[in-house]
């Protein structure tokens, strides 16, 4: 550099505040929101062949969302004080809206699941439509948690909530495809060949839908990176960290190549009718999204601030 050599003679280390519990929590809420949206779409379309998928996902959504906040509480330094979140709320903090959303959403998800299982179509549809904004906010706010922590260049972008939502859809559909495929392979034997064919077609359709959403995800990531690389110096550093730095293997290797491009080829390419390929693609997609959470949460904090 023009200034000549610069050496840091003395400085102190700082803690890495948010660890992978947070990333895991993002991953689980994402799965939950994704499966809820799929379930509601299935319910709204109301066709008989969508029923099984609608049912699986209706259970998955609240179940995953009960696992998710356990990660949050485990991450607290004072887990027994978690109720302070409700008693001493602060409306300027995204965590506060999160704690109320995280309470409302599973309750509504459970009621919705009961409606779906007892076959009360009307109620399920209404609840489903009401639930979608809730599902979107419950996952969207996690994006805001990162975006509003303005210190970290990798997080502080308006695209963050959308990126989180879209990747949640991807991983949610991936999970649904895996479960539906397992059901189709081992637990669907009694069905007539026609229903089995129909189920298979449905799974393939879901996988294609997933591939389109992956494309959207890739577009968002590309725009995020382009802006990072042209913005201020910290943002540039953040962009380089994930493109060529310590987090490149995870970001480029796992998230982009293994978790997006390969699944897209498997689902849209010559193997598009092959169940095994589709399931492999769905597993890869979930690994990719998990890696994305890791890169965002941990990577975002590794750029020194002082």
């Amino acid at each position, binding site marked *: 550099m023009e*200034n*000549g050599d610069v050496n840091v003679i003395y400085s102190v*280390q*700082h*803690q890495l*505040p948010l660890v992978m519990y947070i990333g895991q929590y993002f991953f689980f809420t994402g799965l939950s929101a994704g499966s809820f949206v799929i379930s509601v779409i299935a319910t709204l379309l109301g066709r008989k062949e969508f029923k099984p998928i609608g049912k699986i996902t209706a259970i998955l959504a609240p179940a995953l969302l009960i696992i998710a906040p356990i990660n949050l509480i485990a991450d607290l330094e004072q887990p027994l004080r978690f109720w302070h979140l409700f008693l001493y709320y602060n409306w300027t903090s995204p965590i506060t809206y999160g704690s109320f959303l995280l309470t409302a959403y599973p309750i509504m998800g459970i009621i919705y699941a009961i409606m779906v299982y007892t076959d009360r179509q009307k109620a399920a549809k209404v609840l489903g439509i009401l639930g979608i904004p809730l599902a979107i906010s419950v996952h969207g706010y996690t994006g805001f948690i990162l975006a509003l922590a303005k210190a970290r260049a990798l997080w502080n972008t308006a695209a963050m909530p959308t990126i989180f939502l879209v990747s949640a859809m991807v991983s949610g559909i991936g999970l649904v495809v895996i479960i539906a495929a397992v059901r189709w392979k081992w637990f669907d034997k009694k069905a007539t060949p026609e229903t089995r064919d129909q189920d298979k077609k449905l799974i393939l359709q879901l996988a294609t839908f997933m591939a389109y959403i992956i494309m959207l995800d890739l577009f968002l990531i590309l725009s995020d990176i382009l802006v990072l690389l042209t913005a201020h110096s910290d943002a540039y550093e953040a962009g380089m960290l994930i493109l060529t730095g*310590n987090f490149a293997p995870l970001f480029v290797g796992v998230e982009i190549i293994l978790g997006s491009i390969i699944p897209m080829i498997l689902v849209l390419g010559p193997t598009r009718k092959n169940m095994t390929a589709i399931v492999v693609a769905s597993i890869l997609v979930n690994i990719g999204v998990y890696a994305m959470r890791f890169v965002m949460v941990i990577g975002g*904090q590794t750029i020194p601030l*002082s």
Partner: protein
Amino acid sequence: MANKRYAMVIDMRRCIGCHACTVACKAEMAVPLEVNATWLKIIEKGTYPDTRRYYLPRMCNNCTDAICARNCPTKATYKRDDGIVMVDQHRCIGCKYCIASCPYDTRYVNPLKNIVQKCYFCSHRVDAGLQPACVETCPTKAMIFGDKNDTKSEVAQVLATNATVVLKKEMQTNPQVFYISADETVMSNVEKDINYRTEGTLIKIRI
């Protein structure tokens, strides 16, 4: 009369990089090993024999628009009327969102108490009419602390008659620790290029 507004000015023309402020803070606030509420950053510029060291004492800026207080979900972090940003030790749940949000890396989890702490401008001493421990200790009187709304105070006069800068003004946090004659490189995050957190060393770097 307007509210009190505590602020600090650190005059880098006087600082000799002796770490006395760090030690005073450690003792006064019982800051455990591994973490720091006040610390010193030292860099060296140039190639031997034409080198020079630059220092930068660091602590919480007790920002007027503190992002940590805005983002704290329980209002455990709050601002006093005189501008000091406090953490209520009984209310903090340790979510660490404030640490992630602070652009200055000034907060830490106390490993013994499992709650978040930082520099409070020694609020307990200030309330008793004393100066913060670091200010009192500084052998060259490089640190000046007081109510900047009181025009007769030393800090107000120093602020009025000197060119001062703050860290990361672009962050819109309105820091209340001002520096006179601080070097631009030592104020920036020069460690950016190396991932010292995961490698665990303080190191030579390329910029």
